[in-house]
């Protein structure tokens, strides 16, 4: 049995008979369609009497011959005719793709959309912050309704489980700072100032900043993805109808946990960075640990620690808020969850760094050098 659909052309004075044989199906359609395109005859008769199996794609080809070339069809059995009729009935001007606007319009539209989007996000975040404060107010008035359990669970996820990675990262950063600093300071014979460099940068900036970046990547993204998929699953809507405020049940526990965990993690990170630097100083610069710790106590003012402890909760709030806000903005499909998660992390880190710059200027102005 032949499975190749093939056709024999009988050309007689300008008219042409296409006698198909074998299976007229999707399997061989590519070649056949090209061959039919190349056909130049005008008066075509299609003979289907030798066709063993025909599917809708075969029927579509036959229908196209009928439609475009005015071909006559002979030898079709009942099922084949039915199939051709069915396909012919489905031959409607179906739109396959959207109309694409011209490039210039598209670029202008995109810039406009970005700008609007940016402003809308800013406005939305501000509104979200307000809604969160109102939610907090509620909780303060009805503390018993608050889900402390949810907060405690987040403590573990945001704080405890991040300890290892934050610690390791800070330790390594401490070593890097010490090593790079030592190389530069050695040129002035001021190697011992490596300790100042480590102590101050770790306590004032690096500890909290690196922690913020890590928390944004670990927890901010998780918040966005969690809330996003809950939103898709209509869980958030279900909550609302039951009378549970998503703000109180989902957002505030996460924000609160991050706000409370950030200073602890930031402090831990600073200590680990100092530890890393200390180990490097001891092994590589022959500064014994006792001397190192003594120097650290002398050169790092308490205000540096205060700065970190003031900045950390603010950073935590920004990160958690960006995550929750983006998560709750999800609608449509699963891809949106991914996009929003990315946006949450980028936005979180960006805002943290912008704020850090403000803090730096501010603290310098108030004299916390």
């Amino acid at each position, binding site marked *: 049995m032949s499975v190749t659909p093939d056709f024999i052309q009988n050309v007689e004075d300008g008219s042409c008979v296409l006698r198909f044989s074998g299976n007229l199906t999707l399997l061989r359609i590519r070649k056949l369609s090209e061959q039919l395109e190349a056909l130049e005859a005008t008066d075509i008769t299609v003979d289907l009497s030798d066709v063993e199996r025909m599917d809708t794609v075969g029927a579509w080809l036959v229908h196209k011959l009928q439609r475009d070339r005015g071909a006559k069809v002979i030898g079709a059995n009942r*099922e084949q005719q039915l199939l051709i009729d069915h396909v012919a009935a489905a031959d409607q001007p*179906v739109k*396959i793709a959207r109309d694409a606007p011209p490039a210039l319009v598209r670029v202008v539209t995109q810039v406009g959309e970005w700008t609007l989007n940016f402003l809308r996000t800013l406005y939305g975040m501000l509104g979200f912050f307000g809604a969160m404060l109102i939610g907090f107010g509620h909780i303060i008035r009805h503390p018993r309704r608050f889900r402390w359990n949810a907060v405690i669970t987040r403590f573990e996820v945001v704080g405890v489980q991040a300890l290892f990675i934050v610690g390791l990262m800070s330790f390594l950063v401490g070593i890097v700072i010490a090593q790079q600093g030592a190389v530069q300071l050695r040129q002035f014979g001021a190697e011992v100032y490596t300790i100042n460099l480590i102590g101050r940068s770790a306590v004032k900036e690096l500890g909290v900043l690196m922690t913020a970046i890590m928390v944004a990547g670990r927890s901010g993204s998780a918040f966005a993805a969690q809330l996003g998929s809950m939103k898709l699953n209509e869980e958030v809507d279900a909550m609302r109808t039951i009378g549970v405020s998503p703000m109180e049940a989902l957002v505030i526990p996460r924000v609160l946990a991050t706000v409370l965990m950030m200073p602890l993690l930031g402090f831990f990170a600073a200590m680990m960075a100092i530890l890393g630097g200390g180990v490097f100083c001891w092994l590589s610069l022959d500064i014994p640990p006792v001397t190192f710790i003594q120097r650290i106590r002398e050169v790092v003012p308490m205000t540096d620690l205060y700065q970190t402890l003031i900045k950390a909760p603010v950073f935590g709030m920004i990160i958690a808020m960006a995550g929750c806000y983006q998560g709750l903005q999800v609608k449509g*499909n699963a891809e949106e969850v991914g996009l929003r998660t990315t946006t949450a992390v980028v936005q979180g880190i960006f805002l943290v760094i912008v704020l850090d710059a403000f803090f730096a200027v501010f603290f310098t102005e108030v004299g916390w050098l």
Partner: protein
Amino acid sequence: MSAHDNSHVIEVHGLRNSFGEQLIHDGLELEVRRGEILGVVGGSGTGKSVLMRSIIGLQTPDDGEVLVFGEPMVGRDEEEAKHVRRRWGVLFQGGALFSTLTVAENVQVPIKEFYPGIDQELLDEIAAYKIAMSGLPVDAGGKYPSELSGGMRKRAGIARALALDPELLFLDEPTAGLDPIGAADFDQLILELRDALGLTVFLITHDLDTLYAICDRIAVLADKKVVAVGTIPELLALDHQWIQEYFKGPRGRAAAAHREAEPTEGATA
């Protein structure tokens, strides 16, 4: 064509499925004849979807044999079973359309996968008539699944399931969540497609109207196996408690009465 008995498209023998301690199927037997619409019914949790997943190879059964087109499906790897896969189409409950692709692109995915190299123009034509055939409006091709209603999503799912011109169609609760008019239209669509394309249909449903309107035979899942297969009158003659409750309950009676009052517009083959 293989040498097996051609009249059965699906054969399931001694199927056993379990999740942990919970036994879902035990010694399940089922045969689906060529060209029929087989309705599969059963209470919630009797493993209708699991049965379908076992047949199409998404779930590896603990024991038993599944033959589709006479070819064993259990333990076949994806690559080996590919030539069988292209002969069936599946409509999942929610449509399971790829959310990042438009409807037309969704329909083209299986064609591109199995028959690479077909030029885009022909692909677009194929997608266009499949979409029209599934009863979607003409502007649906460029839309994303999230822009469609539930009923339209199911139709788009059908269009994708039909992309490869399958001989066998699996439908998992196709009319669930549709309004009665939409559900009746959908029943009609399935019937039309079966007649026009010569499909065999494996249909999981809870919809009594669907059972009466379009199913040739009905398989009843209960007690971890298929307890009965047959036409509705044959099933009604059986003395099985669940079957009696199912068809003679208030909803079952209503559906039956409806059928008698309006002698089967569905039966115009």
